[in-house]
């Protein structure tokens, strides 16, 4: 039997939305307060959904210790309490939550082998959330 397992995580980071390829006016108009040169921060809620057959011996899609360990090391450890603009992932792209969602999906897709990655969902605030399933349609 195939089941989907979702785990939620929390990390805090700062960012500034600004495109170096565009003039200052364009950045101010496009990004508004998010273009403040000193940056600002969010508490990001991250949801990782994986799927797979439930192992009859363990009753699990994958061991949570493995998923938590991977996310803690590769995602929370890399992005938590950082200025996202200073990280290699955002050297040439704007650290919007759309791009952050895709970057986190790619890290999981490349490195997490214990279950199939279904989607990554992020809440930037209680009002905004973003989801990415590697380009596939979402199932809900």
């Amino acid at each position, binding site marked *: 039997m*195939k089941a*989907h397992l*979702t785990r*939620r995580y929390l990390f805090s980071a700062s960012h500034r939305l600004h495109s170096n390829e565009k003039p200052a006016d364009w950045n101010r108009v496009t990004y508004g307060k998010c273009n403040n040169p000193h940056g600002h921060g969010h508490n990001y809620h991250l949801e990782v959904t994986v799927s797979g057959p439930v192992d009859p011996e*363990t*009753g699990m*899609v994958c061991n949570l210790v493995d998923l938590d360990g991977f996310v803690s090391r590769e995602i929370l450890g890399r992005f938590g309490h950082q200025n996202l603009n200073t990280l290699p992932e955002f050297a040439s792209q704007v650290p919007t939550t759309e791009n952050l969602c895709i970057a986190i999906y790619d890290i999981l897709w490349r490195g997490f082998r214990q279950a199939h990655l279904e989607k990554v969902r992020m809440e930037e605030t209680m009002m905004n959330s973003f989801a990415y399933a590697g380009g596939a349609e979402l*199932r809900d």
Partner: protein
Amino acid sequence: MVYLTRKAEFAASHYYHNPEFTPEQNRALFGKCNNPNGHGHNYTLEVTVKGSVDPTSGFVVDLKELKEVMNREVLDAMDHRFLNKEVPEFFTQIPTTENLAIAIWQRLVPKLKAAQLHRVRVYETPDLFVDFYGEP
């Protein structure tokens, strides 16, 4: 097609243990969840059904009926119970959230007459939940 979701809460205890493994293997695999005295959770259950809207009633499903089925088939059997010892599915299976979602699906499917079951979601904690769509 309209999707309708009904929530319920239940509290239950469980522990994870596979009798085919050695005590050391069980401890290594299941960690704190292997404590034989059990531990508990406040589970939140979300049952989503789908169907077309009946032109007379305006309903996908009569919520009262759905609530009664959920109460009878799931909550009466599982609320304030030790899952391993009191719920027959878990005499032989480990009561993980995955298996709980599957067991709840299998209890509900034969009892839901009007609407089609779409998804069973079980939250073990606010930060961990499992979805089951009836896939083999």
